[in-house]
């Protein structure tokens, strides 16, 4: 089972956090911080697995992460998940985001937090992997987007504002 999914940037700022088990607010923040400390000090060319820190749960759990340009994607899973399987699941997730947002970048995750969560909900439900098929996930996500578009035309292109905000920060996180 997947216990938590965390995304934070190179400075440890959380960009998305989803816990499938209950922790108190404070513990959740501590987990994010601890995970960042554990993950950020690791070199690029060493393995993507890490035995869990103190908080997220002893020897049973492990952290599986991938580092893209400015973001860390960390999945905390228990022993019933396959390490390499999860590693590729992260890849699927990121590629899906990339397709949904067209060259996804850190800012997309911030401005469309709800959308990212909804995409995630199509992949992982209650800690269980629901769907690994990218086209299926995109179909589901787009059904929602269409609804949204038809509802509001007043939405100014977020991309424009975002790029005005900080051009340097807008680096693609995946190059597929």
């Amino acid at each position, binding site marked *: 089972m997947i216990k938590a999914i965390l995304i934070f940037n190179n400075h440890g700022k959380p960009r998305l956090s989803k816990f499938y088990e209950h922790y108190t607010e404070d513990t959740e923040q501590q987990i994010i911080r601890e995970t960042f400390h554990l993950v950020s000090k690791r070199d690029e060319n060493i*393995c993507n697995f890490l035995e869990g820190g103190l908080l997220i749960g002893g020897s049973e759990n492990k952290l599986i992460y991938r580092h893209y340009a400015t973001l860390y994607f960390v999945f905390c899973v228990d022993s019933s998940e396959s390490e390499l399987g999860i590693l590729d699941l992260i890849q699927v997730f990121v590629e899906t985001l990339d397709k949904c947002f067209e060259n996804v970048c850190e800012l997309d995750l911030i401005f469309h937090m709800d959308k990212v969560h909804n995409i995630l909900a199509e992949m992982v439900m209650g800690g*269980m992997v629901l769907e690994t098929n990218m086209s299926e996930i995109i179909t589901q996500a787009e059904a929602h987007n269409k609804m949204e578009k038809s509802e509001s035309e007043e939405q100014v292109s977020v991309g424009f504002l975002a790029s005005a905000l900080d051009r340097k920060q807008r680096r693609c996180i995946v190059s597929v």
Partner: protein
Amino acid sequence: MSDVVEKTLTALPGLFESQTGAAKITNRLRQLIKSITELTSKHEEENLIKRELSAIKEQVSSPNTTMKQMREIMVRAMYCEMLGYDASFTYIHAIKLAQQGGVLEKRVGYLAVSLFLNEGHELLLLLVNTVLKDLQSTNLIEVCMALTVVAQVFPKDMIPAVLPLVEDKLSHPKEIIRRKAVLALYKFYLIAPNQVQHIHAKFCKALSDKDPGVMASSLHIYLQLIRESPDSYKDLTGSFVTILKQVLGGKLPVDFNYHSVPAPWLQIQLLRILSLLGKEDQSTSELMYEVLDESLRRAEMNHNITYAILYECVKAVYTIHPKAELLEKAARCIGNFVLSPKINLKYLGLKALTYVVQHDAKLALQHQMTIIECLDHSDFTIKRETLELLFRITNAQNVTVIVEKMLDFLRSCNDEHTIIHLIGKVAELAEKFAPDNSWFIQTMNDVFSIGGDLLQQDVPNNFLRLLAEGSESKEEDDQLRLYAVESYLTVLKGHTSHLPQCFLQVMSWVLGEYAHLQESVDRREVIRLLTQLLDQRSVSSETRVWILSALTKIPEGQTDLILDLAESLSSSQDTVLRQQAQELRHLSQDSQLREWVLPRGAPWDGIEVDSSLSFLDGFVSEALAAGAAPYKPPHQRQEELCEDRALNLEPYSFSLPVSLSSCSITDRQSPTLLSVSSGLSGNSAELSQKAGSSTLILEGVKRVWGKDGYLPQKEATAPPVDEPSAAVQPASQQEAAERIEPRPEPSTQNQDKQQLASSLFVGLGVGSSVSLLGKSEAPPPRFRKKPRPHESSSSSGTSKRSSDSSSHSSRNTTDSFLYGSFPEEEPATSISTFDHTPKSTTANGLSQNKDTKEDRHANTSQILGGDMVIVRPSTIQDKHPPSVSSDLTALLPADLKDLPHSDVISLTSDPSLSLSSCRLFRDEALLLVIFISNCTETVIKDVAVQLTCEELKTASLRGNVMDCLEARSTSVCHYALLMDDPHTNVSLTGTVSYQTQPGHTNTLPFSGTLSTADFIRPLVVTTEEYGKLWLSLSHDVKQNLKLLTDAGDPLRTTLNALKDALQLHVVDIIGSEGIVACRLLSGAPCLLHCRVNGAALAMWLRSPHPALPDFILYHCQRALAHH
């Protein structure tokens, strides 16, 4: 007219504002994020978020905020919560949004709810109705959202409310809904297994769903079920193998390919399931050899995900019953993993090796050089995994080298979690394989000083127990103790300020107990060293207590030193220390008392502790006689203080039915406080005795509800998460690597490694490996612990296991019972008036069962590709109108006529036969009577009825075979059915075979459902008996039910309605409370206590059977809902 214009004008600004407001708000999030990114310090961020939150607060409470704006606000609130700021005031608005908004608002609302709330949050109750509504919605997106939220956060108590709806979704035409429903049910299974017991058959259907996605999600459930009881699902092995074969053969749609590997995640799941099924089971394993071989062969492409499959394959091969050919291939795979330049694969290779060395230690030998390299690897995770592997191959010969490696690693390690984990292993190895005393003590010294206060308490405890209890030979023990004393004296003479508290405690205890063994050491020196510790500021007060007790044990004749010490401590601010100093002074002055209190060398087992302090009884009674106030436990004292001071504002606790008038004294206590006093003091017991025999004694009654709501039960609460005292500050990896071993010259490096390898892998060679395979054959541990009389944890573990196995076996027996012929059949039919042919019936029955079994296989194995249509007999529910004339009941056998019975319902019919059934309620069983009517004008021959139901036991049957059935006549056959474990609904299936013309057999399938309600019988008890029984039971379930308010006396009406529907026995009704009793046939009783609570009926159920209350509650709910 002017009025209207004026109104429009006044309304205009509002309209205008709300429109611009929307645009403003859409920008708010951007502004917020923009300003956050521009911030430089944490402090500024805090201020900004605080401002933001107060702005949100204002907006949510403003009545002008539209739903759409609310959506925007919710996203902002989520953002703030993610950053760790409390936005709990928005929770209720999130629920509102989910309740009232359109689809888009709902989505944000549900998302916010699943992010903000947890399963136990009280606000979730407000969501239940919304979820119910959305589950029934025709909009697919709404149904999806509801299912997602149900799988994410849903209160356990409310599962019965949505369960039927979620179950229905299993047959929804849309795959995505079915898939989500399966996962939601799995979630229910995880949090409340007994509530979904009855739908296991439906899981099977999900497994055979034509959509591979639905099938894949059902594997989650099966993996879990099989992990819990592999034996019950052996018959599905064939199906899983077939599925895997089809996946491998590329039978799935191309959509499921990932990097041109067909459905890799599905393969991984299946391999796991297979390895669980094949574990220690040769015949099952044989079924899967072929497919495993194919898997190993196919997974040869070089992509990450194929390695994932390979790894699972290898694990499976080593888990199931071994087959040499496969093992060889798997071993080669492991080799590839370990030697791979890709670091992730190396890691997995090491993991696989760790797993495999238990079976085959030689494999580690093949890769010894790689392992040595990994030991010096720059990656922390790899190093750790290598040590884990070494831990597994440790034996008496290589223990020193391996322990040294581990300690080296630990010295350079900063991660607390790793330290705790590994240091325990070092201690374990040291205890198991220590070559000599000095090494052992030295290693344990390292363990204590490295592990320090992170150590789990059982490490020092075990060590001290080992020293204290000793082994068989006293001489050896004393040597060990002596060595420990010597070693500790040396340690204490050095710098002690950096030593962890736990180490100091161990040392002081050992010195206190065994310093006398060492003749050459001056006692004064020992005392001086220990006293020195007391003066250090870094020593905690707990350690001081340890040191003082050690000092109490040492002195004989050193009174002057001790008196000085006691003097100096007598002014200490710590009362415990002061008291100890006092004791110390007394004991050192009175050697006789000392001898009595602290006997030297007394055996450990002989010490008995009088925990009830009975020796003080005399003192207490004297004091009481002299007019002293009786002792009151702290909570009671506090309670009385509160009562004295102020009005009691706490609600009266839930009172028990029997002593409505007399239990008020105990009832005055708030439930929270009562729950604290599990061992009630003599005082309150006295009170209840005074109150008379009919009073309920609340001692030992489990309190589930307290003043703060649900009181979590001890076993349910997870152990508290340790808060780290400081942030982890790890050193850089390179530094660590350098420190772990001084790098030798490059030329000699290789040689060194060879040497290391030979010392590490000694004892794993071909010759000796035979004896070392498996830990069980390892040389006996040097330090053998004496068995403890009360190993509570292990005994509870075994008892649990035994109960598990008993439940398995019972299941097995029912299975075999069902799949075999019915043993009761022959005697029963021999009594019957009909002629019969036992042989043919049995054969018939057997083949029938075989058919159903094969059917199950067929169902699951034809999932993919095949277009076979499964024909299922239509189920007949009670709600079908009884089309059969009720005069059939007149045909009941005379001995059954007087029993209460249900309406006769039609089961099935065809042109020649029609079947109907009737349920008769006998005390110890349910009689299912089946009426077989011949609708034709000709005689029907060889009629045989066959009934199957997995959940029930058939106690007896009569009349299920008859030679001929006359034209237009009806024959009766009946089954006595027993229910051992409650199930909500039990489905029955059966067939009737008959011949209209000779040699031409027709079969007519039928099915029906029985509910637990059919198996509930009234339990007639008196109020006193009820009270006694109530106290003897645990397993509380509590829930509020609907109260029928249409009549004058709602409680009585409701209870009567329940009584009619469920055959309960209403024991007593007093005021607004009522007590009701029933039982499951003649088995487990269930007591219900009802109380009118506003517009609801608070029901509290108890039963020795853990699952029974749930089911009864479910039926009560249904009965009241239908009323």
